[in-house]
């Protein structure tokens, strides 16, 4: 039995997730919001990898899923940033609270 158990990883992932979530919901700069989302995805990845080792059915699958997540996250970061650039060109701002076109 390892001295580091599954739940410790899960708790760590939870803390990181919460930090990311709070940041994503409150940060004003769109770049930071995006990066906070990355942090949340990372937290999830920790879970995946941790379950791959300590889960009910340990195996490589969890790591594979972590890889897929990283892939999709990378794609998301790219598209998100591109969208940010497009928005910035239109609005001349990166402040998320000044972008309220959803209202209309």
């Amino acid at each position, binding site marked *: 039995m*390892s*001295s*580091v*158990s*599954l*739940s*410790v*990883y*899960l*708790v*760590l992932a*939870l*803390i*990181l997730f*919460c*930090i990311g979530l*709070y*940041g994503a*919901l*409150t*940060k*004003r*700069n769109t*770049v*930071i919001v*995006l*990066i906070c989302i*990355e*942090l949340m995805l*990372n937290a999830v990845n*920790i879970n995946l*990898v941790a379950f*791959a*080792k*300590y*889960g*009910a059915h*340990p*195996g*490589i699958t969890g*790591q*594979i899923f*972590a*890889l*897929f997540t*990283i*892939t*999709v*996250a990378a794609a*998301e*970061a*790219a598209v998100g*940033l*591109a969208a940010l*650039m*497009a928005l910035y*060109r239109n609005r*001349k*701002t*990166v402040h998320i609270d000044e972008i309220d076109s959803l209202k209309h």
Partner: protein
Amino acid sequence: MSGEYLAFLALALVAITGGVLMLNLTKVVHMVIALVFTFISIAGLYVLLSAEFVAVVQVLIYSGAVTIMMLFGIMLTRHQEEEGEKTTTGGFWRKALTAIAVFAFGIAVYLGVYRLDFGEEGARLHENNTEQIGMALYSHYTIPFEIASVILLVALVGAIILAKKDDEGAPKS
């Protein structure tokens, strides 16, 4: 107290510190740099979890690609904020409510996970880790793998189109 435990504690501390710093720093670049610490320590955690390949990918993609991309994003936009301008949105109440909700959510999930232990351990994961991943990926997960590549392509094309400057002559919609 085993060495693994010490390593975990150190890495976890760095990861959380990075996150907290990200929340509290004022300059955007500093925030991104703070997160790099987090990303790297997460990679370290992956190693602890017998996932060397994922750890390497983590370093490459997050600490490398994503962070650099974000920094480019910051550079390409205007960031000469005046001193004292707030870095967060919403008023006190909204932030407080969000914080409470996040905290409550955390507590709820914590109650769910803090005793979670399946008692099993994937003891053979670290043996030829990369090979195992490769085997699984190209045998069992071929189709998802291919789809992931398509996603990357789509993201690439999409990002380019989005980021491209509008044609001067394009009719205004």
